[in-house]
């Protein structure tokens, strides 16, 4: 009865918000939870749920999983809208989003790490993916080991199959004591070793501020046989022996070509099976996200009793297109393109910089930095990132805007970029500056725009009102 009222309240709020032309991604769920604290548990009952958590790649990975499952044609997929990944957003999705067909529905939910601890027991997901753990707005979320403990406490309230990143020591540790239900995905260790030797990475003045350098149990520095990027790699603790687990799903790659280019070809191997894939959303980090998605979809198909699940999952990965604020390219006149890459924490910015420094079409670059509550009030994270080793490969001219453009301008300048190659404007003139960047971009080139969260929302709003660009981000 209580849940009935709660559902009704949620739907009424949603209808109300829609009527006044507002998005309704979290308030209906918030209302439902007020009427009935068990609303999520009741709404989740009997549903096939896959959760995706971790500090980076949640949206992209959930998006990949959703598109892949939808491409089979015999499932309907429901997921929460990017950003609405707290309890309220998930309650909204479960209560208000009704299947439109009579096909079996799979719910793919990206879940905030702290929210996961609270609601995993109610969701009872069949499959839980943990992408990675990087420092992320520490002023909001606290320490990384706490984040890991949050996820662990959530996991223990479920019997979900765990899909864990073998190359991230913090994530891999979640498999300890849960061996019977843990599967690992990551880079092939041989592949990493080969690439490390063949294509050594560039060094900057100062190393990036790194996470998880030491084994939290032994306080001894991890050793690495090989690395992909940041703290991800084939690590081992010389003291307790904890090491990067062997993978069930692994990426075989060769950096002879760049994963920053669309259509990069690589393989995913599962035991004796091996499939060739083309990377639909570029970026080295998306090799991980794709592998995580293929793992999750294969496991889902297995639970469903389908034949050749791995082969089907790999094939489905070719159906994926870019997600909201992640690698989506917009065509402009003169064969020019605009690509917005959301960056919200050091790992994300590092990956995007690395991506832009390698992308062949990157002819212009713009940063937008805000420091509202949703971004984290502290802008110091931009200094944790190693710009220095990449600056020579970035486009010559760099444009800077956002409410904290002064901080970003200085950050780029201190990376070694000459002041004369920098141009800045306050947020109010962001579109004007972007137009200039587009004008000055060479024909056929792409202007990459790297905003953080509220800067991206603000920029989108301005592009609609000032340029009449419609919902290109979907």
């Amino acid at each position, binding site marked *: 009865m209580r849940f009935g009222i709660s559902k009704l309240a949620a739907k009424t709020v949603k209808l109300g918000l829609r009527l006044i032309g507002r998005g309704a991604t979290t308030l209906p769920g918030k209302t439902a939870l007020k009427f009935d604290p068990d609303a999520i548990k009741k709404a989740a009952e009997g549903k096939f749920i896959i959760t995706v958590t971790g500090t980076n790649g949640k949206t992209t990975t959930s998006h990949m999983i959703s598109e892949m499952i939808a491409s089979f044609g015999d499932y309907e997929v429901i997921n929460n809208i990017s950003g609405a990944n707290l309890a309220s957003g998930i309650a909204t999705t479960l209560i208000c989003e009704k299947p439109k067909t009579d096909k079996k529905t799979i719910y793919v939910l990206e879940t905030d790490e702290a929210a996961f601890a609270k609601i995993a027991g109610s969701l009872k997901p069949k499959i839980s993916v943990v992408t990675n753990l990087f420092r992320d707005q520490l002023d909001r979320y606290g*320490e990384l*080991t706490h984040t890991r403990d949050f996820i662990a406490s959530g996991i223990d309230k479920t019997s979900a199959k765990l899909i864990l990143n073998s190359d991230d020591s913090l994530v891999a540790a979640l498999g300890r004591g849960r061996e019977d239900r843990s599967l690992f995905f990551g880079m092939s260790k041989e592949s990493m070793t080969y690439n490390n030797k063949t294509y050594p990475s560039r060094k900057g*003045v100062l*190393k990036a501020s790194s996470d998880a350098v030491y084994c939290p149990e032994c306080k001894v520095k991890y050793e690495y046989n090989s690395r992909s990027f940041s703290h991800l790699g084939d690590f081992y603790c010389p003291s307790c022996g904890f090491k990067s687990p062997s993978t069930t799903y692994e990426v075989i790659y060769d950096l002879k070509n760049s994963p920053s280019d669309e259509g990069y070809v690589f393989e995913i191997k599962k035991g004796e099976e091996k499939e060739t894939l083309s990377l639909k959303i570029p970026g080295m980090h998306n090799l991980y996200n794709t592998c995580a998605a293929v793992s999750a979809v294969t496991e889902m198909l297995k639970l469903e009793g389908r034949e050749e699940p791995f082969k089907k999952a790999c094939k489905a990965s070719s159906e994926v297109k870019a997600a909201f604020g992640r690698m989506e390219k917009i065509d402009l006149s003169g064969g020019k393109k605009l690509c917005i890459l959301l960056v919200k924490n050091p790992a994300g910015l590092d990956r995007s910089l690395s991506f832009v420094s390698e992308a062949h079409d990157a002819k212009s670059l713009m940063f937008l930095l805000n420091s509202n509550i949703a971004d984290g009030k*502290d802008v*110091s994270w931009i*200094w944790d990132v190693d710009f220095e080793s990449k600056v020579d490969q970035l486009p010559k001219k760099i444009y800077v805007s956002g409410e904290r453009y*002064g901080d970003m301008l200085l950050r780029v300048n201190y990376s070694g970029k000459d002041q004369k190659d920098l141009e800045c404007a306050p947020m109010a003139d962001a579109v004007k500056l972007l137009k200039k960047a587009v004008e000055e971009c060479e024909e056929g080139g792409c202007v990459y725009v790297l905003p953080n969260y509220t800067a991206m929302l603000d920029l989108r709003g301005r592009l609609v009102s000032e340029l009449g660009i419609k919902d290109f981000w979907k």
Partner: protein
Amino acid sequence: MSEINLTIGHFYPDLLNLYGDRGNVLALYTRAVRRGIDVTIKEISIGDELNPSEIDIAFLGGGQDNEQNILKDDLVHVKGPIIKNMIEDGKVFLCICGGYQMLGKYYLEHDGNKLECLGAIDIYTEGKKERFIQDTIYEIELPSGKTVKVAGFENHSGRTHLGPSVKPFMKVIKGAGNNGEDGFEGARYKNCFCTYSHGSFLPKNAAVTDLLLETALKNKYGEDYVLPELSSEIEDLALNKALEYLNG
């Protein structure tokens, strides 16, 4: 090779690297290199040898609790006595947040647990539940007698109190400062400068970067050494934009 050279000792960069701490090292590096000074950055972590004569400016940042616990033994018991001597000898130190607290006598956790620290400077810290997390503005008096505004960001639950031999580093204009009570931020003892300010602290505050560089180079090349002029146009723009932003 330039005649003037400078070595920055970056302590525990693999553990003390929160909230853009590396920006401070980058600021010292950049404003020295732009003046034609040869700069070496030396990483000194757990188990690494510490040779005071090799270092002109020492930098200690802040870390997560887990990380700070890992290095405590090495800092307090192995490098501690050497660091104490370096500070007494007038070596330039910049210590931020956790680095600041660890130089003091002790840290009293809010549950009453007392953590012994280095005891290099006469300060102590008491942990409280409520954290100070906000943008900050301070004021600092330079050796020239000129007073300048400085922008930062604080994020700490410790309340630090200074003993009689230690002077406050800055005056609080906006923010909580050392303890939320006395209106001061940070500590200065001889040439050891400490602050809670992240931000990163130095990049936007070129006057402070230059103060540290000049102090270190005077130490090394004699009192007559004068730091060459260098524009701080872009740093000042960042500072003024930050001040504007903070003042709404």
